[in-house]
């Protein structure tokens, strides 16, 4: 199964959505994939080079790390600095 693909949905918000010109992207990554793989892929897109080195990220609506492993069907969110309250 080492060659299987990991299909994920990427959600972008606020300033990051403006940078990438999109709020939602479907990506197909080669397995094994981590959150870092997603960020590397986004950085190759137009505007993606301006993403910070280590943004906050979430996997399936839970805060995650750059080395968090991804599974097929996951939802990965890239979160600009939080400003609630």
């Amino acid at each position, binding site marked *: 199964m080492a060659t299987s693909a990991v299909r994920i949905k990427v959600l972008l918000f606020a*300033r990051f959505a403006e940078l990438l010109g999109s709020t939602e992207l479907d990506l197909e990554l080669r397995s094994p994939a981590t959150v870092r793989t997603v960020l590397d892929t986004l950085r190759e897109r137009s505007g993606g080079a301006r993403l910070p080195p280590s943004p906050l990220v*979430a996997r399936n*609506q839970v*805060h995650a790390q750059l080395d968090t492993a991804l599974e097929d069907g996951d939802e990965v969110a890239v*979160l600009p*600095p*939080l*400003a*609630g*309250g």
Partner: protein
Amino acid sequence: MGFLAELPIEVRKVAARVVTPEHGGVVTFVGAVRNHHAGRSVVRLEYSAYGPMADAEFARIIAEAEVRWPARVAVEHRIGTLEVGDVAVVVVAAAAHRDAAFDACRYVIEELKRRVPIWKREHYADGSAGWVDPTAAGVSF
């Protein structure tokens, strides 16, 4: 249970969700839109959120507080366009005695700022606008 409000928040209604006759100490934190930020004059702002995760994170934070202290906590946070003076967030912590109520209320508002995916875009008096980045140097949080 949704914690994000598209309409004005009524403090009394938030409190009514958790306050019971056994609660002798009720602490309410009200966060309002202020007219200045980092030396600039703010006229209004827009809150947006990653809704499903914000609700899940609020639920986790409240559960943590209610395990740590003998208190019940209710929270509501506005999204959408707010004017100066509008209520942006309300946290109500109710306990038998004041110590647990103060501690639980403080915990929830601080964790909210650290963990709940909500963003704020400010509109300034000079017509410009910008995303608020509390992690940026020189900006008070």
